Every structure is written in C-alpha cells, then in structure tokens.
C-alpha cells in the first residue's frame, strides 16, 4: 500500500475529490496547510510597515491506496489539480506497511 500525499490549491479540492470518487476511492483525509515554493508570495501592509506573505494557503490530501491503483490515482489527482500556473503543488508517494480499520479492528488487505 502507498500513501499518496498531494498538496494542491484550496479551490481544487472538490475537483480532486470528485476525480478520486470517479475511481471509486472513497477514503481520503484533507488538511489545511500553507506552502512555500517557487510561487511568489504577496506583499502585505500593517500600519507603518510592509512585509511579505510567503506561505500561501494550500490543501494537503492524503489517500492510502493499494499498490495496484497508485499510478491511476496519481494521474487523476494531477489532472484534477492542474492549472498550469506555478503553485499547482506536488504529489508525494510514501510506502505504507499496514492499514487498519479502527471500527472493525482488522488489518486491511493490500
């Protein structure tokens, strides 16, 4: 099993979720994060001073999937999250040794 950890633009979350559902992947966990990268930040102002906001709002979507479907999931996520502009984000693939369902207490088949 793999953990597919995608960092995307906030307004792309719904698209990604739908894309995953189309692959009948129901389970996912979403986290509000802030990201720094090539994308330029903004200049903000507070009373006397100007400062730069370099951490931009992003959303992290974590999905654990069987090895078999990893590639199509990655494709789906990237297609749904892409705008073509700098700041689209990343997809990271991490190995997962086991996955358990708390309700049933069972280890899930890979």
């Amino acid at each position, binding site marked *: 099993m793999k953990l597919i950890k995608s960092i995307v*633009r906030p*307004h792309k979350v*719904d698209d990604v979720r739908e894309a995953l559902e189309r692959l009948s992947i129901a389970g996912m966990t979403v986290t509000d994060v802030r990201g720094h990268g090539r994308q330029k930040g*903004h*200049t*903000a*102002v*507070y009373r006397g001073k*100007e400062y730069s*906001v370099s951490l931009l709002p992003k959303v992290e979507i974590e999905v654990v999937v069987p090895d078999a479907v990893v590639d199509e999931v990655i494709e789906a996520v990237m297609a749904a999250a892409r705008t073509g502009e700098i700041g689209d984000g990343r997809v990271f693939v991490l190995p997962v040794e086991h996955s358990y369902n708390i309700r049933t207490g069972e280890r899930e088949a890979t």
Partner: protein
Amino acid sequence: MNRARIASVTKTVAAAALFVVTAPAIAGAQTAAPPAINQADTAWMLVATALVLLMTPALAFFYGGLVRSKNALNTMMMSFVSLGFVGVLWAVVGYTLAFSTGGAWVGDLSKVFLRGVGLEPQGTIPHILFMAYQGTFAIITAALISGAIVERMRFSVYVTFISLWALLVYSPVAHWVWGGGWLAKMGALDFAGGTVVHVNAAAGALVAAIVLGKRQEYPSPSLLPHSVPLTLLGAGLLWFGWFGFNAGSALGATPIAGLAFVTTMFAPAATLMAWTFLDALRSRKPTAVGAATAIVVGLVAVTPAAGFISPMSAIALGAIAAVPSYLAMMVRVKTTLDDSLDVVAAHGVGGTVGALLTGVFADKALNGLADGALFGNPKQLVIQVTAIAAVAAYSGVVSFILLKIISLVTPLRTTAEDETTGLDLSLHGEEAYLHEG
C-alpha cells in the same frame, strides 16, 4: 413625502388624538409661532442619528460574515469606506441637491458647502442635526449596493461608483420624495425610505451585478459564509440602528415616533417567525443565516410603512413580506445572476412589498395623513406603484450609465488571479484572521 411635513402633521395628529400634549414646542407648532428648537425632539434626534450611523458598520458585519474569509475585509471596507466618501460628499453637495428647495427633480446649490446650515431650527431640531441625520441615510444606501458585487470588484472603482451614485442617484431621489419633489407632491407615502433607500439601492445593485458579471466559481456550493456569528452580529446591530432609521424619521420624540418604533419592533419579529416556518417547511432546518436575513427583510418591508400603520398591521406586513423575498432567493440561485448577497431579494423585493403594503395598511386615524386601500383609499396604491417604478427605473438607468462610463476608463473587475487569491490580500494587503495558535 417631505419629512418636515410629517413632523408637523404628526403633531396635529397628536392633538387630534384628543389628549393634552404639553411641550410648548408642539402647542407652538399649531399656531403661527416662529420655528423653535424643541429639546426633547433634539435629544431623540441626536440618538436617532447615532443609531443610523451605526447601521453602516453593522452592514459591514452582516455582509462580511456572508463572504469567504479571503474577502472578508474587502467586503467590510465596502461599507466602511462609504462613511468616509459619501459622508464628506453629502456635506459638500449632496445635502443641498436633496433638501434645498430647488425644483421637482432636484434641489439647487443654495446650501452647497452647508452654506446657511447652522444651529437654527429645521422643524424643531437644529438644522445641522437634520442635515447629519439625512446624511446617514445617504451613507448606508450607497453601501447597500455592495452586497451584489462582493468578491470581484476593484476597490477604487467601487469607491468612485458609490460616490457618484450618492450624488447623482440618491440625492435626486431623496429630493423627489422627501425634498418636496414631484413624488412628494403626488402624495407618495415612504415614511423612512422603502423606496428612496431600499428599492433605490436594489436597482443599482441589480445593474451592477449584471454589468460586473458573476464570480468565477458562481454558482458553486463552495461560496459559503465564513462567519455566521459575524452576520448575526450585523443583523442584531442593524435592528438596533433601524429604530433610529424608522422612529427617527418622525423627526421628533412624538407619538408617531412611538408608532414607528413599535412597528419596527414587531414587523421583523413576524418575518423572523414566518421565515423559520418557511425554512422548516423546505428542509426541516431553520437556519441562522435565514434568521438574520428575515430580520433584515422585515425591517426593509416596514420601513416605508413604519409611521403609517398599526402594530397589528405591522405583524401582518412582516409575515407577508417573508414569502416573496424567500422565493426570490430560491429563484436567484437557479439563475446566473450573481447578486451575491441577495440585495435584490432582500431590499428590492422587500422594499417593494413594503411600499405596496403601506398603500394597503396606512391608517389615517393613526397617522393623521393618509389612508391605504384597506381603509378605503385604493388610489394610494397607484401612487405607490408609480413611486416604486420611477425610482427603480431612474436608479437602474443611471447606475448602468455610470458603470459603463467608468469601464471606459478602467476595468471594473479584479484580475482572475487576484479573485482566486482573495481580495483581502491582493487589494488590501491584509488577512482578516491570523491564528498562529
């Protein structure tokens, strides 16, 4: 109608109503006595003016809570900035355009820069206070428009637009109805601004929403309020301030002010009750946004009627007014018209219904001025319709022209990128909230 007239009229009523009114000012008003300051009227109008001024920040919270957090400050600034620009312009030239004698269509420039506006009595209160009170109406009317165009308009363009709008649309229309203009002469009933304020602003808002176009994501379920408590705060403060708006329109601490106050308390109560049932009927879920909206709709609807109808009529009016506005909102979301915060449904429909029902429920026995259809004067309804139509048409057309002219000089909308980023950061260089925990 000319409020100065109301003021004196209400006093005739007071007497007519067969009880002794003791403040000499009032006795005075009956005879040919010179105009005089009445301190009790002054006390109330000081408060009423402060209350109406508070409505604009209140509107900022009401609107601000309904947008996404990345546009919260821009939305609130759209109200606050009106306090500055429209406020100053009102003193400079808006007041004279609206309330100097002038002609049927607009006042003259005799009071420009407040020339001749001093401590002398206007009615029974200091003239400057009367001027300031009327100014608070201009400020909030302009700000009301913003609800239709949030989350996408360039700020500088917005400021330019409402500044011109206040002078070229609000002032003339106020003159028509309250400045002794043609609608006043025709006998249109608009106690506190159902037509002058709400229909007027809604027409401008509708046009602005169309000219500006919809938000990128509209209609998408993700366009949701970021803070309903902020909206409830706005609704609470709006109701509070609205007592100054409606009861203050009696221009004195008179029995008619009492009447306007009471109808302003009970009409929204009835709307809130009706709206709760409508919500429950539709989805079994009475919403808090619905409650806040209902309060505003009820206040809008009772505005033209406040000093003319009985409290029980106000309850009927409030309950009835809930339905068309509620339906209007359900229809709007099915269209591509991105009147983002439903200015048309709340102020346009609500104001129209209120103005019409004023022509139905008005009771001369109470207001000493005019009867509505229910009391045997159906003609009043015709006058009301004329006023609504005239104001809506004028405001719509001029708003359209203004926006088109501006758009020749500079784009009205922000860039798509700024819209995605959020206007707070892109236009104001700020974030509304920062919880570093």
